């Protein structure tokens, strides 16, 4: 069993409800994401929000990102500190932080179709994001080059989004949000429509991102249960409770407790298959 402990709360969703035409779409959603501390390892957090199609995942995604205001309740995030993207995890022990309501721009958002400005080259788009990050001041170009090299995009910096493949566009979206410097990265259906080879690459890419900083927190909204579970440490299941109009978190599964987090080839284990079955029963 891997040794870990829970630190401060990084994100808290409190009594969140969202209505559409007086109909409750999301009702009384409560969950929190804590800093996971592993001795000697810089480890971010990867949580998945899983639910069936049409259950309200996209609405929850938009609300979490601050693009849509909830009708009730609130989403609180750790007030960001000026930290460089790859700063050492020593920060976790020292400075206390407070939670404040989320605003659009607090979270790095990667949309399902990896939307980018069609009129900007990849380099220009990345520069726009890098300029938002105070910690990169004066080093924007170096950071862009470094990320592009890491993510295998050095050759496409001068191209426009339309000249890129879907996989390249996804990597550009991820780099863009990383350059912006948010601790939170919100991904909408990142595994949707990917073939097996690309899927593996995306999974390792996300794991790499999660390890880039202690506070880096990936929130994956997906209906691809096995892939999402395989890379997460916690799973929130969005579903409907008996007699309730809208969707809510019906179950939280702590994969660390079950020894299913941060494990290679976890999908081959019996406990993993049982967990998948358990999740399916909750949907």
């Amino acid at each position, binding site marked *: 069993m891997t040794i870990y402990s829970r630190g401060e709360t990084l994100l808290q969703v409190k009594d969140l409800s969202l209505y559409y035409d007086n109909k409750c779409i999301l009702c009384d959603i409560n969950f929190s994401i804590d800093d996971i501390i592993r001795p000697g390892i810089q480890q971010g957090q990867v949580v998945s929000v899983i639910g069936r199609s049409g259950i309200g995942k996209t609405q929850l995604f938009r609300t979490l*990102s*601050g*693009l849509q205001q909830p009708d009730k309740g609130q989403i609180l995030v750790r007030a960001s500190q000026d930290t460089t993207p790859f700063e050492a995890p020593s920060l976790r022990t020292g400075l206390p932080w407070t939670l404040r309501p989320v605003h*659009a*721009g*607090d*979270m*790095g*958002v990667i*949309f399902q*179709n990896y*939307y*980018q*400005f*069609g*009129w900007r080259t990849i380099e220009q788009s990345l520069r*726009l*994001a890098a300029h*938002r990050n105070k910690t990169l001041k004066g080093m924007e170009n170096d950071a862009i080059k470094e990320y592009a090299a890491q993510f295998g995009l050095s050759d496409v910096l001068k191209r*426009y989004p*339309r*000249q890129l493949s879907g996989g390249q566009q996804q990597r550009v979206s991820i780099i*863009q*949000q990383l350059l*912006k410097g948010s601790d939170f990265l919100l991904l909408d259906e990142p595994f949707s429509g990917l073939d097996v080879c690309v899927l593996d690459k995306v999974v390792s890419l996300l794991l790499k991102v999660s390890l880039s900083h202690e506070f880096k927190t990936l929130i994956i909204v997906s209906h691809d249960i096995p892939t999402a579970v395989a890379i997460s440490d916690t799973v929130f299941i969005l579903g409907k409770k008996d007699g309730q109009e809208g969707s809510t978190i019906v179950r939280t599964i702590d994969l660390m407790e079950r020894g299913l987090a941060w494990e290679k080839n976890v999908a081959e284990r019996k406990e993993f298959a049982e967990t998948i079955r358990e999740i399916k029963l909750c949907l």
Partner: protein
Amino acid sequence: MFRPFEKISRTTFLTLVALEAIVFLSLWQSLPAGLIPSPLKIGEGLGGLITSSLLWDNVLVSLVLTLKALFFSVLITLLFSYLSVVPFFRPIAQFIIKCRYLTLTGLIFIFTLLTRDGSQLKLSLLVFGIVPFFTTSFMSVILQTNAQEFELCQTLGYTRWQCLYEVIIVGKADQVFEIVRQNFAIAWMMITMVEGLSMSEGGIGTLLIKYNKYNDLVHVIALQTVIFGLGLFFDYLLGILRHWFFPYTKL
């Protein structure tokens, strides 16, 4: 070639255009002589016009006026279209759009009172005529903006004014060229009308009115051919400029 949605090459298309034009002109030429001059006679008239300085002097006058009018029209259009995303200014932009239902003829006297001379009168009438059409087109571009463009800006932490700059001013700059290209025909069509109001400075409109007055149909149609050709040339030029300034429009 006769099936719906059939794809043809550019060469095939150009050959089709040439063939259909030849068939049309041949049919026209074979018609019995009447009031409408034959293509050959028009061709002779066109040859005479092209070699005369009369045509080019007048074309130059009209072109300068059109370009001036386009310049001011684009400035006014952009100003009010950009501001239309601010609720306070939206009624003004909406009013400008509705102004396209106004006829210029009824406003000539008011414009005469408001302007100093014939040159200003022509320019202001042209601008007044063009701006509502430009604004209508550009407002439609703004309204059709993909919501994800704003959302991406917001997720990058942009303020609303920064979103306006990135998504509308920078992001739609290529559309300005496209709108000018599409609406250039309106300016070109109106110039012949406004030049008739103040004929002292000349222009192709003035020339056209003079030829019409004497029922010189050969030169009227020859001049129309020149106007048509110049229109096509500017359409092509603006298209080239758009691709040159905004290379992503070619993708």
